């Protein structure tokens, strides 16, 4: 049954929510301004979610991504404003910083056997501390061309939306076509069997953390350039939002499941729900409760559909 595939059931849900919102709020929901804003607001989370999906497919996750978002934006801002480096070098430095976090996570988890949750939880604190040391109260007045990366528009959509779509497209294509990315499914499905079949599991895990950190680094650069400020508090709570989006998009904490496009759909669904709640003036108290209920309902619904099928 088609609806047993999370991608299709989630797409249907997104369509239903959109139609319902368009009927309930005809003046404010189905407008280019509102929908482009929704896409912009979910772009940072989605870019990180692509990496998280890759990790969850292989059966692990990374709690340090939110801190890496603040860290990379902070590095870029620091080297531009304090050290006076040009924009391209600042981008490189930010990505190197983010990549280093990924390599440390990957090495200690894959080669030294530290539990991923403990390792990335510890790294979350370390990197957040680093971001606070670098950015202080936040670094403002970033160079024009750096801000242009996140503030320019193409066809009326702000650039982070295009970077998000490009990231999803590239990783979805590679996830379907390349042997390299297919290996993550084997690792997530049965790590021991993958190892016996000749897949270098440790190295693949290290690459997974590296890719995820690099994507979080890219998201951090985009957030800082969009805001025109590097905030040390940026990305707080992002890790759980992203994991929620990825689980909604079809991943499983036990690994071996999920598609990259699911990361986009999960984030899109959460973005739409959040937008509808803002349009309906639902208080922030309820937003968390409603998102939690939606997550439980999605997983429960899935289980019921599968049980019925078997």
């Amino acid at each position, binding site marked *: 049954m088609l609806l047993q595939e999370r991608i299709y059931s989630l797409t249907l849900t997104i369509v239903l929510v959109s139609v319902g919102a368009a009927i309930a709020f005809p003046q404010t929901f189905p*407008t280019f301004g*509102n929908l482009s804003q929704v896409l912009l607001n979910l772009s940072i989370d989605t870019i990180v979610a692509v990496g998280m999906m890759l990790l969850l497919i292989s059966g692990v996750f990374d709690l340090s991504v939110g801190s890496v978002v603040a860290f990379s934006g902070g590095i870029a801002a620091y080297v531009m404003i304090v050290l006076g480096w040009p924009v391209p070098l600042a981008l490189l430095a930010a990505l190197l910083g983010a990549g280093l976090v990924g390599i440390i996570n990957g090495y200690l988890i894959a080669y030294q056997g530290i539990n991923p949750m403990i390792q990335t939880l510890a790294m979350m604190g370390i990197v957040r501390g680093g971001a606070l040391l670098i950015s202080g*109260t936040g670094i403002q007045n970033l160079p024009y061309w750096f801000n242009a990366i996140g503030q320019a528009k193409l066809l009326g959509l702000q650039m982070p939306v295009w970077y998000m779509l490009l990231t999803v497209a590239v990783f979805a294509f590679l996830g379907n076509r390349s042997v390299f990315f297919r290996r993550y499914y084997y690792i997530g499905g049965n790590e021991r069997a993958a190892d016996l079949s000749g897949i270098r599991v440790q190295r693949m895990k290290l690459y997974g953390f590296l890719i995820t950190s690099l994507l979080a680094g890219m998201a951090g650069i985009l957030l800082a350039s969009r805001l025109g400020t590097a905030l040390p508090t940026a990305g707080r709570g992002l890790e759980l939002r992203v994991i929620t989006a990825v689980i909604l998009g079809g991943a499983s904490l036990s690994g071996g499941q999920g598609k990259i496009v699911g990361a986009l759909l999960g984030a899109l669904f959460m973005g739409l729900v959040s937008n509808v709640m*803002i349009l309906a*003036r639902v*208080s922030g*108290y309820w937003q968390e409760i409603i998102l939690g209920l939606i997550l439980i309902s999605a997983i429960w619904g899935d289980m019921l559909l599968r049980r019925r099928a078997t």
Partner: protein
Amino acid sequence: MKSYLFITLLLLTSACELPQRNATQTDAIRTIEAGAETDGRPEEYVMVTTAVTMPMYVHHDQAAFRRWGKQRGVNVSILGPAEWDVPAQINTIEEVIGTRPSGLLINGTDPAIAPVINKAVAAGIPTVVYDSDIVNSKRHAFLGTDWYQIGQMQGEEMVRLIGGKGKIAYMGILGLANMEAGFQGLLDVVKKYPGIEVVGKYDDKANVEEAARITSDLLAAHPDLAGLCGFDSNSGPGIGLAVREAGKVGKVKITTVDWEPEHLQLVKAGVIQMLAGQKRELFTWYGAQFLYDMVHQTNRLTDQAGARGLTNVPATVNTGLLRITRENVDSFMK
């Protein structure tokens, strides 16, 4: 193939729109005309904050805003993320602007929200900032307190309490612009006293347990610690808890911010010596009233009241601070 690629690149380049040179400036500011902003829709004022569930915000800011709405007979809504998340607050403001509320009351959490405030102003929405000023924005008005003064007030009281000598430490949410200004105010006062040694600045993450843990560690490392200063709502209860558990009530002097019931109880019990309290109800009550006055153009300054750059409300209001000690705490307890 190459020509297709060239044409595609050309089209994309021509469809690309770069941001304005000064991103915090907006060239088009729509004028505010009486009654024009509601367009026949029910009059609605929206507050956007972050950490919308924080008890201090709920009991003071939001309660006063709701009371104001009820008294005025207009709709009020309170939106924003449940946790402290400035980018999420920005996203919420962006989405609210599209719904064109009558007025926007924004918690000035960080200078990074300036561009979105400017966007609201450019869209012709009366916009008032409260709590901490966003000086680099084009907000119509600001009501709040000067966090540097909060730090100074704590510093002066601490100097008095410890007799100008001894070890002190302070804590709050590191990295927040307003709190860092408060830290600076404290340091600028205590640096005049060479007998005072500042042994540390700590991030309690607005968490009572974390503030208590930091305090316990500090008391273990510095048994002669003379005083502690707190800068977020949860600093005081956390510091108080640890000082109590260590049996050092009265020996370690405590000054902190806010006056929630638990803070007042700690003052009454002699655990906390002084609270630097904000008049938060005034931020949102008068902030909302300013919005109303802008929308209805009460107190027109000229016949062209909606003219560019003219607002009919005070640009900046410092609501002042409350000094709460054991002597006057009873008058604040309900």
